[in-house]
């Protein structure tokens, strides 16, 4: 079974000129362990789509099942827990908390998971080391370069994986540099016993490239359009 299933997702923004349809009837399935890139021109609705995918925003119509659960049915706190446990965001603007040290920024998701101080520190430092920022734990976000900020954001997005997960390996960490367009990373934690390993080769990535406007044409794995408008 697919980790994520989206069916007929539409989303409009309310603007002064009337409703602006940002997503029209998008359907998509992603298997555990897949590495998917969503590409498109600026303003084509990628961020809008990622927000829905990341359980931050709700679609106007359509169904979204995540790991077997209907996201529509979840309340605010349940969504927060889903985001905390399954989803790591690397926002377009990074969105680090300016007054906190890098270590505290990376450890923040763990605070909401109820981890103790020592565990949080250890995991945050380990994560920072993995993105090549060992010496910067105590720095503030506005005292490092833009690329370094991005790496911190990636570290924060990946830190909240359960340490007990046997599939948590260094080779699953993203390689630099990241596509700036990718707002969020979805991690299949494969709770149902899937054992796909992430494919790192570029050819192995699935790329979805909707044209500008409203993500009208996308392809599923077999190269067929899975949504049309």
């Amino acid at each position, binding site marked *: 079974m697919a980790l994520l299933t989206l069916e007929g997702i539409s989303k409009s923004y309310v603007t002064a000129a009337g409703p602006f349809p940002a997503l029209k009837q998008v359907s998509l399935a992603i298997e555990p362990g897949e590495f998917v890139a969503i590409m498109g021109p600026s303003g084509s609705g990628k961020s809008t789509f990622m927000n829905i995918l990341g359980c*931050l925003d709700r679609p106007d119509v359509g169904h979204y099942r995540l790991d077997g659960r209907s996201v529509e049915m979840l309340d605010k706190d349940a969504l*927060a827990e889903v*985001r905390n446990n399954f989803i790591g*965001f690397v926002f377009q603007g990074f*969105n680090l908390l300016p007054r906190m040290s890098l270590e505290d920024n990376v450890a923040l*998701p763990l605070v909401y998971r109820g981890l103790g*101080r020592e565990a949080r520190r250890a995991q945050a430092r380990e994560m920072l080391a993995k993105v090549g920022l060992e010496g910067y734990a105590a720095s503030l976000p506005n005292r490092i370069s833009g690329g370094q900020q991005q790496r911190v954001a990636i570290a924060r997005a990946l830190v*909240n994986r359960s340490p007990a997960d046997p599939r948590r390996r260094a080779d699953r960490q993203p390689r630099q540099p990241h596509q700036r367009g990718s707002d969020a990373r979805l991690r299949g934690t494969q709770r149902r016993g899937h054992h796909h390993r992430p494919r790192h080769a570029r050819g192995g990535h699935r790329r979805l490239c909707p044209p500008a406007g409203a993500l009208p044409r996308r392809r599923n794995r077999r190269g067929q359009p899975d949504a049309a408008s």
Partner: protein
Amino acid sequence: MLGAMLHEAWQAMGANRLRTLLTMLGMVIGVGAVVLMMAIGQGAQYAVAQTINSMGSNIFVVLSGYTSTGGVRSGGGSAPTLNVADAEAIAELDGVDTVAPVHWGSVQMVHGTNNWNAWVHGTTPAYLDARSWPLAEGAAFTDSDVRAATRVALIGKTTAENLFGEEPPVGKTFRIGQAPFVVLGVMAPKGQNLDGRDQDDLVVMPLTTAQRKVFGTAFKGSVRQILVKASSSEAMPALEKTIEALLRQRHRLREGVDNDFTLRNLTAVADTAAETTRVMSMLLGAIASVSLIVGGIGIMNIMLVSVTERTREIGIRMAIGARQRDILLQFLLEAIIISVIGCLIGLLLGIAGAIAVGSIAKSTVVISGSAALAAFGVAAGVGVFFGYYPAHKAARLDPIEALRYQ
């Protein structure tokens, strides 16, 4: 979790130090004012309670003279309307513990080169008992002194100090006019009465001595006042009526004629005084509480500003998994920390202020632990109460809207 949140709250407060301090100042002033006012109010209550204790309990005073609604009317030279026989008749009534007739006046006393004016109470040995007034030194006079009208006296502490200075007064002699009097004892200090008069500036002597040898009254056996101590406070209402009826009968007052005496229930007077100070101290506390509420509103105001300023931060926190209660707790903690620290400082300043007032104004202040604890609880309550709405507002933000907030 809580540790991390406390740490974060502390950091957030530190990021806006001046603002945090000013907000705290509201609480400091509020709590300080409450503590100070309570100390002053309780001090006043304590002082009144002391005075009431010094009056003796369950006491009636029967005063010679007519009563009008306004108070006692007693003509300057008119004859006292009460006499010793009245006192003896009252002593026979049920529910009466002790009766002491009192004849008084002001006299000039001399000892060596010292002159002193004091009140003389001529009475019976029951007087000390009725007023629950122990002796500090020496011994009281007895009934045989009253019968023989001996020139002996008990003196109050103030009188003793002014007349005898450093000398021990017991056994010494002073003069009133040419007549010498022997000091038998010194009464324990009682302090001021409800009118603020010093009760320790007093000479107590046998009734007959006062009547015959000091004031030389033309009306034999007359007294200005009769002290009646009831056996219990329950007996007082009934006793008040029977004393009045008895005296009207003895004085042959026909129906419709005003009493020629005034019966005062001192316990009731004392209760009124206690009630007055209690209301006064409550009023002080209430006024001070207003500043506490103003301080609370200050916290609410700043927390609302803070929530708005940190909308984006709230959005980020929600995006990485903060639940509504996490956000609520974060902002509530900040409000509580501000109010609790403000309260602690206010408590210290209030206590310091109370001690200063106590020593400058020489008035009694009472700093009670329970009052301090109550102020502390109220402050924490204020933090929760006024911090809740902004925190709730923060927790209810929509994550995506909050993230877009500029």
